[in-house]
């Protein structure tokens, strides 16, 4: 029989009244993990599926909307930037769609991940679960759309005659970076959002500004030299520009640059996880 013990103390006057030997606190999350024998994989999947199913109920076209939406925006951007404004970028359709699809995942994933604790407040305030489960589920739900969009992208690559060379293997690393970055931001913002709802509005603005500041529609080479540092410090811009290099142009990325991008994304992920771990224990009281 498993024995779980929790001891909590605070520098509260209550402690003295109770005459208890205070002073140590056990991390609640280790206790949570030991309590239930089941793994949480199926729960994450169920939450994500619920999200995905509900989003497309009552619509005739159903899941196809998750394809139609990016395709329409892709056509719009293409018409504006390739026909009207005539950007001189080789293989622009593939260049554009890859960037838009990747940024959409970051934006949808981080927005949903940030709101996940509040969105599932009903469950979290009544049932003991590792709270990060709902953030993972939000990301998985955004990931389903992302996978569908990537399939459309592969179709377009084939259609426009872009051949995937060996450098495209680096895209796997960049995908890991993208997920780590999105997860890190979500874990970082989710518990803070519960306390300060302003975070939701703020992050929305950051994402909209980010769409134009990040070289998505245009190439980072179009930015004047003295403004390039914006791209250098922007993790999502680093990931997207390297992805275009390896997938669309079949060029190997700089090893040093790729390493920095990876360290950067994993760093944000670790930071986010640490913040989440620290704040999650009392998050229920503010839901």
């Amino acid at each position, binding site marked *: 029989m*498993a024995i779980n013990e929790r001891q909590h103390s*605070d520098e509260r006057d*209550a402690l003295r*009244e109770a005459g208890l030997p205070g002073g140590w606190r056990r991390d609640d999350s280790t206790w949570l993990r030991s309590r239930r024998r089941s793994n949480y994989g199926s729960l994450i999947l169920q939450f994500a599926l619920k999200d995905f199913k509900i989003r497309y109920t009552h619509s005739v076209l159903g899941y196809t909307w998750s394809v139609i939406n990016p395709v329409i925006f892709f056509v719009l951007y293409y018409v504006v930037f390739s026909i009207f404004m005539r950007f001189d970028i080789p293989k622009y359709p593939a260049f554009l769609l890859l960037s838009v699809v990747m940024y959409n995942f970051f934006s949808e994933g981080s927005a949903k991940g940030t709101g996940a604790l509040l969105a599932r407040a*009903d469950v979290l305030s009544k049932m003991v679960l590792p709270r990060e489960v709902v953030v993972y589920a939000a990301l998985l739900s955004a990931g389903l759309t992302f996978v569908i969009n990537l399939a459309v992208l592969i179709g377009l690559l084939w259609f426009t005659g872009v051949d995937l060379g060996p450098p495209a293997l680096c895209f796997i690393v960049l995908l890991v970076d993208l997920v780590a970055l999105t997860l890190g931001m979500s874990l970082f913002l989710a518990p803070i959002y519960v306390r300060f709802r302003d975070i939701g509005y703020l992050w929305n603005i950051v994402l909209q500004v980010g769409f134009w500041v990040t070289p998505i529609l245009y190439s980072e080479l179009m930015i004047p030299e003295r403004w390039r540092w914006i791209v250098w410090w922007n993790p999502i811009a680093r990931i997207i520009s390297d992805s275009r290099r390896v997938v669309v142009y079949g060029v190997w990325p700089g090893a040093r640059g790729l390493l920095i991008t990876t360290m950067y994304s994993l760093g944000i992920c670790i930071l986010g996880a640490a913040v989440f771990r620290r704040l999650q224990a009392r998050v229920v009281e503010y839901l």
Partner: protein
Amino acid sequence: MAAIEVRGVYKTFRIPHEVHTTLTERVLALFRSISYERFEALCGVDLRIEPGAFVGIIGRNGSGKSTLLKVMAGLLIPDAGTVRVSGSMCELLELGLGFSPELTVRENVTLYASILGYPRRQLAARVKQAIKFAELDRFRDAKLKNLSTGMCMRLGFATALQADSDILLLDEILAVGDAEFQQKCLGTFVELKQQRKTIVLVSHDLDQVRRFCDDVVLFDAGRVVARGAPEAVIERYLQLLVPSPSPRQAMGG
């Protein structure tokens, strides 16, 4: 060894006085210190629950019953004191968590069963069993919004009952649905009792408490004021209700 041992648990909620309705007031409030209402939900609770006991917790609204249950479950962290739990625990503080009217009966039950933590290998079998217990086989693939409220609660109850934890924490969720289904639920409780599960039940239904619990705890103002055989403690509770109501405000069970 006790199934649940609560020692010297304190829990105080700070409820901010939010009276700022206009933007100007809100801006001004930033420079003032925020005033809080301190609400002592639990003040030094000691409770030992033996394995196999069926314990009822009664008391007025706001006396700390639900807070104690949440502390025992690990949802709330006490300000001071310890909670020891031995054995697996399942807290049923509300039925049908995560139910969504837009999903089918089967989808909802699968989600709820995952929330309750049923092992993946048994998930499909348990879902089938739960739908059968709720007598909703016919509506398996109907959307939940097409079911009556009672049917939804039956579904939640049937799914929750599939939990085979050693300890069950129940908050006012007994006996849902029509008379026939209630009879079935009560039968399940007799069964759980025979299986020597440890059950902690918060209830306002004194008849239920009398019928099932062998041990009743009376809460008032965040403290345990009486404990013992159902009849004596319920008597004490009824006496408590007679005098003029205390100034403590009722705050969420």
